[in-house]
């Protein structure tokens, strides 16, 4: 009995010490910029960039494996912020920021199953069981997560209509003289 207790205690202490040593010795330094970049990202884990979430995407951006323009919901504003954080200058003029997409519910098909409400990463869909749902445009990032889950195909991404608040002057087109 005593031998067993002693041997296990010694074993535990020795292995624990080894583990502690290994943790110090073989520590992997996480680039602090990854956390910074992740903080800049929308955090909705929508997956539009092709990565499983914002954290892997941030890692890829920092390692230079993905372009700064990877995040559609973030738009040009995010690209500029990322460029400033990472010290990279990007030409955003080629980026098509003109038509942000928003989800919209077709009221004639929606059956009020509340599946989309549960899926939406930003809680942008409002509704109740057996009631027609509606998308709050201000909160929607156009990630499309709701579209795949909708059993009746009532949700679709549509271009955001410009309003007086969002309309901007277009860049003048100069005809080469």
């Amino acid at each position, binding site marked *: 009995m005593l031998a067993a207790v002693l041997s296990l205690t010694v074993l535990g202490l020795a292995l624990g010490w080894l583990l502690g040593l290994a943790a110090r010795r073989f520590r992997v330094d996480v680039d602090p910029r990854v956390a910074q970049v992740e903080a800049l990202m929308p955090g909705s884990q929508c997956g539009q960039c092709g990565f499983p979430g914002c954290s892997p995407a941030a890692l890829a951006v920092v390692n230079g494996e993905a372009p700064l323009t990877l995040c559609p919901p*973030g738009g040009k*504003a995010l690209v500029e912020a990322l460029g400033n954080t990472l010290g990279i200058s990007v030409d955003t*003029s080629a980026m098509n920021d003109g038509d942000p997409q928003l989800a919209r519910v077709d009221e004639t098909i929606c059956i009020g199953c509340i599946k989309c409400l549960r899926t939406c990463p930003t*809680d942008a869909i409002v509704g109740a069981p057996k009631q027609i749902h509606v998308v709050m445009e201000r*909160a929607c990032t156009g990630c499309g997560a709701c579209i795949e889950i909708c059993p009746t195909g009532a949700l679709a991404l549509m271009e955001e209509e410009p309003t*007086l608040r969002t*309309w901007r002057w277009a860049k003048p087109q100069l005809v080469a003289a």
Partner: protein
Amino acid sequence: MKLFRFRGGIHPPSRKELSAGSAIETMPLPERLYIPMQQHIGTPAEPAVKIGQHVLKGQLLARASGALSAPIHAPTSGWIRAVTDFTAPHPSGLPILTVVLEPDGKDEWDEFPLPKDPFEMPPELIAERVAAAGIVGMGGATFPTAVKLGGATNKHIHTLLINGGECEPYLTCDDRLMRERAFEVIDGVLLILHGIRWGRAIIAIEDNKHEALEAMRATAKGYGQLEVVAVPTLYPMGSEKQLIKTVTGLEVPAGGLAAQVGVLVQNVATAYAVHEAIRYGRPLVRRIVTVSGGAVRDRRNLEVPIGTLVDDLLRHCGHDGEPERLLMGGPMMGTVLPHAMVPIVKGSNGVLALSKPELPEGSASPCIRCGSCVRVCPVGLMPLELMKRAQNNDLDGAQDYGLSDCLSCGTCAYVCPAHLPLTHYFNYAKGELAARAQQKRKNDYTRQLVQARQARLEREAQAKAAAAAKRKAERAAKKAQEAEA
């Protein structure tokens, strides 16, 4: 009085002679009035009427919402026919929420309690009544006047500057107003002075308006606190900061406000509106509009109810064929209109239907770096450098060169020998900056929403676990009871 000079500036052909000779005329009531719910800087007003309801002239149509907003009143008596989307007076031609009013033809005023002697009213009451009357800056900036007055009482304002500059070519509505209604304008100025508890006002008028100067001088005589000053005719004299510099020699710091140098600026038409509101209790429901331009047959100054369509004005004055370009406001800073089915709002000082010969000709060619734009910029910017940055989407670079101080006055584009659309580039760059700020706000908001959702999911999971534990405990207690029994 010693005057100062702001840097730069230009002398575009004034073309004021086209309409300066025609006295203010009242426009007959149109068939329908289209009254947009936003005619001011700030939050749109909220409609307070129902469809089918009968309203009297001056009755409230929409309430101000928030601190920076202005109410909107019925421009005539009649029936509310719709509250719907209608084209806004904006270059985009996009719609805005609009109340449609069908006049009953009686033009019957609502009843307003009249103050006995406004100069015995407590000064705060002036700002309060100005706010209730929906008065906004009528020179075109449409900033709610009451907010400016309210802000002026607790700052160190040493001069009330009344802007009778009217430096935009073609426009003559302020000129006619000062000529024909000098007494009312002066009374409005005195009332504003009372409202801000301060005694001194300078009325600045460009020296090309002799009759207006004479009329205002004659009326202001006898009031020691008023001074009428002729300022040189130089575009953009009517711009707030440039006028302050000319009259007081003070320079408003970059990104700053006039109040920072102790000056409050109000337009003459705003003073007139204050007179109407305080003396008669009448809200702002009409304004004087110059209808001019080569394509207009009878160029006039019309007093029109807010909500009258540009098309009604053009038909009233007659026009020859389709105008080459339709503008609301002056030719330098006015808004290009997509078509004439657009209503007159509180800030519309002019409607210009321009013919082909009046438009600038020549197509754009590369910048030769002649520096003409630098010489004339009234703010002291380097438009050519700004444009280069806007062209290459270097917004931060443009900011460093003072993009946010640009007035969009059009002076640089006017003199550019290469016919470059400089002002258009600056508007584009400012829009991009605004879009970027908007996107950033949305991203921040999205992050908040995601965090809130995660917190909620955790809370729900916890609540579920707690409920399960409770049920388990209850079952155990029940079992124990049964075992005892």
